[in-house]
């Protein structure tokens, strides 16, 4: 019974046969209990099922709310570019120090050694780190999906070349190649950094997508599409990839958390974000010596990194459970 229910963990309603399985899934799930729970007699599409499963994952839901708050606060408080935010202090100005700069109501995150408002500085670092992380996530997902899909769909020499290329990137430690590229791109601002980081973090996604596509291309609906003369590109984009969307979304989420840790590590080593730009990693690197005297300068940026990475990981886990419910159903 569980086999039938899970036969299409990540199917979409592009193919009629899969929607039918989706309906079956609910019917079977409810069939086991004596009285169907309210709401379970309704039928859902695959997409709705995924959303429902995701929202039932309490950890992922809270992580999403926390991440949302972090993003909103980081971008509205000190504003973006020319648009001013609601926070009255500026991160460039040095204010009169209150005491030794410990957190007060006026300066909730404290002040740094020169009297700058640390809340504004941390928010600016968070903005940069978030922008880089999301840009890296998007770029690496696009590249990884493209390479994995082409390799998996065409097989033959295309696959050989693409997968050997992936191996080449995998054999170099991620931090090492990122450091070299980061040093090169350091002068080009954070988007340059995000671009090069995205160009080295796609490897695991490419392998996953290839594996998924390898099995999908043998399915009947692909054969049917080929039989009516559909072009390869259209088959990949309209028939194969939508069915691999679960793997892609989960992996994209996790690549964001990899990216945020990678970027902060690089910036900590001095190969990432270069002044005058700042990121959470550079803040920690700058103030780590102050840990014993001014611990707040050290705690806040680290906690921000931890919060963001933790939230993203939880969301990724929730998405994985939602798209692939096999693992959390061992004892029913």
């Amino acid at each position, binding site marked *: 019974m569980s086999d039938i229910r899970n036969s299409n963990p990540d199917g979409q309603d592009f193919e009629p046969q899969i929607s039918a399985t989706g309906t079956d899934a609910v019917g079977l799930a409810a069939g086991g209990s004596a009285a169907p729970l309210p709401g379970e007699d309704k039928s859902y599409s695959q997409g709705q099922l995924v959303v429902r499963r995701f929202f039932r994952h309490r950890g992922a839901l809270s992580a999403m709310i926390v991440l949302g708050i972090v993003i909103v606060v980081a971008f509205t408080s000190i504003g973006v570019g020319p648009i001013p935010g609601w926070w009255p202090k500026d991160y460039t100005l040095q204010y009169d120090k209150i005491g030794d700069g410990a957190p007060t109501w006026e300066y909730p995150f404290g002040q740094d050694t020169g009297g700058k408002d640390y809340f504004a500085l941390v928010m600016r670092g968070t903005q940069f780190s978030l922008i880089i992380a999301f840009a890296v996530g998007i770029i690496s997902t696009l590249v990884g999906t493209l390479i994995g899909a082409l390799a998996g769909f065409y097989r033959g020499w295309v696959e050989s070349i693409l997968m050997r290329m992936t191996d080449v990137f995998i054999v170099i430690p991620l931090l090492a190649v990122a450091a070299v590229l980061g040093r090169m791109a350091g002068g080009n601002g954070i988007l340059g950094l995000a671009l090069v980081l995205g160009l080295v973090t796609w490897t695991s996604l490419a392998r996953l997508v290839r594996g998924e596509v390898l099995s999908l291309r043998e399915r009947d609906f692909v054969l049917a599409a080929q039989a009516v003369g559909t072009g390869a590109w259209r088959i990949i984009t309209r028939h194969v990839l939508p069915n691999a969307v679960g793997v892609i979304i989960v992996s994209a989420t996790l690549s964001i958390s990899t990216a945020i840790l990678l970027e902060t*590590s690089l910036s900590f080593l001095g190969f990432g974000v270069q002044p005058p730009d700042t990121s959470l990693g550079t803040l920690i690197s700058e103030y780590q010596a102050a840990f014993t005297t001014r611990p707040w300068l050290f705690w806040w940026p680290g906690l921000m990194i931890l919060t963001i990475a933790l939230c993203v990981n939880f969301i990724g886990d929730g998405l994985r459970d939602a798209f692939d419910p096999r693992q959390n159903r061992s004892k029913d």
Partner: protein
Amino acid sequence: MDGSNFRPVSYSDTLIAFPSRRRAASASKGQPVLKFILRRIGASALVLLGASVLMFVLTIKSGDPLQDLNESNDPNRDALIAERTERMRLDDTWYERYWDWLSGVGGCFTGSCDLGVTVNGIDVLNLTQQAAASTLRLITLSTLLAIVVGVALGILTAIRQYSGFDYTVTFSAFLFFSLPVFWAATLLKEYAAIQYNNWIAVGQYAPWTIVIVGLLAGFLLQAVLGGSARRRIVTAATAFAFVTVVLFAFNALDWWRDPMFGIGGVLVVSAAAGVLVTALVAGLRNRRALYAALTTVVVGVIAYLVTAPLLVNEPSWLLLIGLFVIAVVVSVAVGAAWGGYARKQSMLVSGITGVITSIMVVADLLIAHWSSFLGLKSRPISTIGSQTPNFNGEFWERALDMGTQILLPTILLTLVSVATHSRYTRSSMLETLNQDYVRTARSKGLSEREVIVKHAFRNALIPITTIVAFDFAALIGGAIITEQVFGWKGMGALFQDGLRAVDPAPVMAFFLVTGIAAVLMNLLADIAYAALDPRIRR
């Protein structure tokens, strides 16, 4: 992130445990395995070659190697620039420089290694040997620890899915791999080193600390062991009582400053470990395995008494390794002698017990030297460096010194790896526990131990080997940061200094070590695959 799909293996649904006639299968089909391995090595060599070109070009294009000289006001600046240009062959094209480097590396096969010189003219081969030794020491230890702890945690959480314990471990795992390593390192330095060093000067636990530790132990144990509410309460109460009594006794004996373990300690702990190993691997009903384990412990303790004079006074590492090998051989032989109908199982049990007994013996020797070590180094846990400068102690004190230096980076690296290993083991175990062959095993009436250890775990191990292999290579890369924060002069420092100076030789040496480690680990994983999964030995 998900490594389970890396190698497409066609799983049939009717797989039942593992055939025991493995030797026969590999003897008749040994040739294809060798061919397979050779092909893998060939492909890996090509990949390494491609990656080395990429790395070399990226490194030399990453900046200006003459920057510091261009900015200097030295009167003989031009001469220095000319000298460096000459030494690093800056006027040549990238492929000429790469070829130069590659032919130097190629010399390794004919016995004359040449990894080039650094920007200051120091021989990189020498630097690499020292750096690789110190990094591998760090990585190997934490990898081993992480595998043992991570896999054990993964199995426990899979068996107790959705328990309080599962949620706690899951949350901690997420926490640890979301942790910025460089940030956690500073915290660890503060709380695990500086505060501990302050505390060890006194070496007494406050009563409320003991109560909290006892409560924690009780909670954890009942969560892991599970059972009915009454059984849980009994478990928790016993654990609490045991831990608090022991800790108060330690306080009274001033154990933390002047600890002792003794022959009795070795005997009791090893025997307990032997019983536990038997219970897990063979089941306590298999008396022969149990007797084999206990015999091993007794033989081990007697051997310890006999060799004690050798061990206490200035042994050498070689002697220790030799004794360890002998211990393993003897304990496996004890298992074979007791063996009977399940000889292999007994050998495995007594072999593991022998290893544990050896570890206990070393632990006893180290513990016995702790108080004299404290006399030499009053703040034992260091935050920086791989060795205390000017430390003059006897062999075991030097060993303790190395241990306390390696402690913090090892904890850090282990925590992160444990997080990944436990998650992968958990999901892999859950997947196998859902398979039909596990249901079959249960319905045959096998004990839960046999179902989990023999049928579920052995199959779950297959994807785990991939992760462990990948992780080892990733750890060397990740050690760049750990080494930087803890001031270790390892591969990470080599890489960073090289990159800052736009100096390809040390960067490429780093790449060579990590790349070869990655290839070797993948090869090991392939061999482990073949050993674990008979379907692969086609």
